[in-house]
């Protein structure tokens, strides 16, 4: 199919996905609550923080807190993206839109592509607006200008693509709520594993742990392989957030988490298209 002919149906399905999601009251309520929560934390920026008897300067506080907020928003929107994605196929089926669209000269891959991009764009906008609120608070109220915060937000959107594709795929194979919980589980396990790995590499952990005889670097166990191959959602987020403080990211190779998540998106995307191609439309 020519690109010029393939694109219009996809853009229309993206448009309908966006309109249909935003139309729901639950989405609006969720967005307003999130925005209020982000506004409420602005008070934290104006406190006086003391570390080891020294007062921290406002710039350091703002950057450190912004980074924490960045991660909270990133993780929160991933959960919201999963919630938005989990019922999309079932709802379209029940409301007759799936059969309406697919009875037109529109291929299944165009429909799925439209759904993926629509949900992804919506989640990215959701996250970007929340991050922009933090950016505006720090820029206007605190005079700390961090354009890299918004770049980091866009970089982090790769995680949302992973969540959308994974939930859509799993929702074709199992009940919606189980699909949501599975992806949530993947995220939590990854976050916890990355947290443990980061803690074990900290100076304090190195001091506390006695050195073993064998070289631990060469000791490649199965769980290490699993750990390295596991979707690096936190890794991608950390990589993005490293832009905020201009620090170097050294958890893995600098771009490994992004490549890892991107590869998962491609693999799961291919499986999603294949699965939907064989799906019976009711």
């Amino acid at each position, binding site marked *: *199919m020519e690109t010029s002919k393939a694109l*219009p*149906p996809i853009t*229309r399905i993206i448009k*309908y996905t966006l309109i*249909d999601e935003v*139309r729901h009251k639950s989405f609006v309520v969720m967005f307003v609550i999130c925005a209020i929560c982000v506004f409420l934390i602005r008070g934290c920026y104006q406190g006086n923080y003391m570390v080891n008897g020294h007062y921290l300067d406002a710039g350091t506080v703002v950057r450190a807190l912004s980074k924490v907020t960045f991660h909270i928003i990133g993780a929160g929107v991933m959960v919201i993206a999963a919630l938005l994605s989990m019922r999309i196929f079932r709802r379209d089926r*029940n*409301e*007759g*839109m799936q*059969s*309406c*669209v*697919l*009875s*037109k*000269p*529109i*291929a299944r891959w*165009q429909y799925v592509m439209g759904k993926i991009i629509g949900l992804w764009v919506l989640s990215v906008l959701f996250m970007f607006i929340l991050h922009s609120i933090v950016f505006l608070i720090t820029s206007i109220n605190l005079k700390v200008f961090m354009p890299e915060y918004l770049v980091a937000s866009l970089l982090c959107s790769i995680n949302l693509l992973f969540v959308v594709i994974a939930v859509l795929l799993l929702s074709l194979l199992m009940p919606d709520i189980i699909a949501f919980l599975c992806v949530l589980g993947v995220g939590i396990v990854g976050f916890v594993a990355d947290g443990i790995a980061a803690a074990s590499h900290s100076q304090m952990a190195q001091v506390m742990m006695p050195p073993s005889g064998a070289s631990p670097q060469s000791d490649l166990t199965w769980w290490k392989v699993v750990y390295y191959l596991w979707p690096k959602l936190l890794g991608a987020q950390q990589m993005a957030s490293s832009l905020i403080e201009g620090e170097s990211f050294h958890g893995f190779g600098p771009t490994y988490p992004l490549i890892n998540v991107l590869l998962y998106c491609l693999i799961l995307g291919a499986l999603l298209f294949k699965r939907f191609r*064989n799906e*019976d*439309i*009711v």
Partner: protein
Amino acid sequence: MIELKNVTKRYDSLTAVDNVSFSVKTGEYFALLGPNGAGKTTIVKMLLDFTRPTSGSLSLNGILSTHAECRTSIGYLAENHHIPSYLSGWQYLLRCAELLDINRSDAMDQCRRIVELIGMQGREYAKVGTYSKGMIQRFGLGAALMGDPKLLILDEPTAGLDPIGIREIRQLLESLKGQGMTMFLNSHLLSEVEKICDTAAIINRGTLLVKDAIPAIVKDGDTLEDMFVRLVKG
């Protein structure tokens, strides 16, 4: 226009459609008849590529049903048609027009014409959630007529309608007859079929029993219903 060649569809151990072959010519008003569970809806779904045949092939306008292009110029009305409750009938028709790549001004004209045709003037801007089943069915038929399709595939268009609704839909379908459209009507309302269609096929337990012009199927003063019962009961 429509061609089925040795089409078989199996769901695990159940054979829903068993080696069915027939064709429907351009301009024909064709009815696929059969009792509940005969495999009629499965054939419609295979025509629209909603489900794939286990073996055999289906083609529309000479293009295999697995290609999206074959659905150009096709209108489809599903059994128990659904429309998102938050849309109005008008918005739904516009959405269908957009999906068919009809430009905005043409789409508005077509929507106006279709609303008039289905007799829904004055209710087109109300939310679908406030519509009765018959009204939803009419808008479904309206959506199927969007873009002046050459082939209309209707799966139980009068399912769940009251006698007045059935009559109105029948009159609407009869009024379309002179427009050179091909119709594939899937129904078990034999009296309606007899009034609307030229040819019919009777299917039972996935097997094609007969396919011919209705006058050729109905013989010796019998009605289509008598013939249908005789064929289905064996």
